């Protein structure tokens, strides 16, 4: 008990050597940083979406670890030294954990490649493996440099379109990846800094050169996704005007970024540009 208290205290002053023994995560993005940077025995449990291959890049690896519900109960039973959580997670859960004297570390949603790299360093320090963090960041830098050399000419306009007409804003990680690959996020012209829903007419009228979607052949599992199959979108954006990047590559920042950047460069060479 004393050791644990000391470990947490040490963590607070940033001493990487005395890293906590057991760390749990209840945030999908923190899950993946933990999986990449921590020793397997340091990981006490991962969040509810950690094994969902459509969302997490490391879903297969996540099966090695206990899956948490994201609610306070099983975390308290697990008694980890530290919990990684999303900044916008449920406050009620956090309050319960803090009542139990379980320390919670917040992670904001990264909005650029640089912010991702900062988070990688932060988790590297928490788990006591800053060298792994530096190695990952270096890989990200190399991939970004590679993407820049292959960057599209003339900054083609692109809109990232999701279900129900959700448009990824300019102030987010995806936009930063697009910019690295020489693409201009047309959401800026629509005044969507943080993203938002727009109607299909607005998308067609904005006339982006390309659209970015998560699936090459989406299924209309509900009316929200049926929008992505709308004939107006189909006709104006045939496959050669679409860039397909699966969500698991773009939702979070971390170990998937080099693959995301490579995929982006690769997809652009397939658009006939």
């Amino acid at each position, binding site marked *: 008990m004393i050791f644990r208290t000391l470990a947490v205290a040490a963590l607070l002053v940033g001493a990487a050597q005395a890293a906590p023994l057991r760390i749990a995560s209840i945030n999908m993005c923190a899950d993946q940083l933990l999986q990449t940077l921590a020793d397997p025995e340091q990981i006490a449990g991962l969040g509810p979406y950690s094994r969902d291959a459509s969302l997490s890049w490391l879903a297969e690896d996540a099966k090695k670890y206990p899956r948490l519900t994201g609610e306070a109960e099983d975390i308290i039973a697990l008694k980890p030294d530290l919990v990684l959580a999303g900044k916008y997670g449920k406050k009620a859960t956090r309050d319960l954990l803090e009542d139990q004297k379980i320390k919670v570390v917040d992670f904001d949603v990264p909005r650029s490649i640089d912010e991702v790299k900062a988070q990688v360093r932060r988790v590297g320090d928490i788990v006591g493996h800053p060298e792994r963090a530096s190695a990952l960041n270096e890989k990200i830098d190399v991939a970004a440099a590679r993407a820049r050399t292959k960057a599209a000419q003339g900054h083609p306009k692109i809109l990232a379109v999701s279900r129900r007409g959700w448009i990824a804003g300019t102030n987010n990680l995806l936009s930063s990846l697009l910019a690295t690959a020489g693409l201009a996020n047309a959401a800026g012209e629509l005044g969507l800094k943080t993203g938002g*829903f727009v109607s299909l*007419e607005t998308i067609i009228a904005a006339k982006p050169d390309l659209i970015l979607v998560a699936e090459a052949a989406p*299924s*209309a599992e509900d*009316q929200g996704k049926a929008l992505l199959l*709308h*004939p*107006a979108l189909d006709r104006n954006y045939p496959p050669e005007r679409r860039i397909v990047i699966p969500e698991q590559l773009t939702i979070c920042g971390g170990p998937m970024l080099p693959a995301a950047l490579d995929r982006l460069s690769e997809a652009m060479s397939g658009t006939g540009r």
Partner: protein
Amino acid sequence: MLSSQRSLLNVLLPALVCVLALASLGVGAVHLPIPTVVDALFGGATEAQRAIVQEIRLPRTLLAATIGAMHGLSGAALQGLLRNPLAAPSLFGAPQAAAFGAVLAIATGLGDALSFALPLSAILMAFLSAFVLVAIVGRESNLLLLILAGLALSSLAGAATALALNLAASPFAALEISFWLLGSLDDRSFRHVLLAWPFMACGAFLLFARRDAFRVLSLGEEAAQSLGVNVSALRLHVILGVALGVGASVAVSGTIGFIGLVVPHLMRPLVGHDPGRLLAPSAFAGAALLLAADIAVRLIPSTSSIKVGVLTSLIGVPFFLYLVFRERRKLEAAA
């Protein structure tokens, strides 16, 4: 006097629907001047403008008109069948049940949101709920019984829809629940039109085919029976017609309530109390009302789009309260 009023109505209402349909093609997130809209409709203008008018606004307009017509028609038919001014599909849960059917079809993997499994399953559930309601209410046409049975059925269907979506693995379930329960015509395509129209046409045909029987029925069930109307068959007929129309509508738009309640009441003073004559004007007025509501949601400035089902409920519920107020005495007598 009444007959001249009627023929005037038969001209004015279709004209109103046409004007509103044109207006509906003219409004949207993207501002297009009316000449451009007309140009784009007939194959001119730029490619993007054509896509907007022909492929996005046109199906939406057609759906608003026909779904509104179907709701108005169903309301008029049900009020005729049950001889009760408070009868309307949305009050006894047919749309909610249809929504459950549609969600069930998707959840069980019978089909996706663009397959025929969706309207079929919605129609089946709407039929079941209407059938159960009519079975409970029986021949009495008791107001209190009708409302209570309707409340129970619509609550059950709503809870079942929420459960089906609750159990769905998709993290977007909450968003989709709101869609089904609010009702909207945003960004529909001709695939949706194709999905709904065959069934709506059958439903409308069934209801119109029995308009003379409604007239006879207004004399009372026994009198109708003695005049050679098979009341049980009529009942089944009407339920089937309503289920086809409402089920197919809900499968593409979600639940849009209260048009079936409001419209026949607006038309009744104009056409008189003959339930057979009420059908056509109610269909046109329903089309006009939903078109107007769907135009309004696109014009009302708001940060995120207002769903048309919300607007029709906002109009419909106060109207319903007014009807309850008017029927208060009857209700008190029944209790």
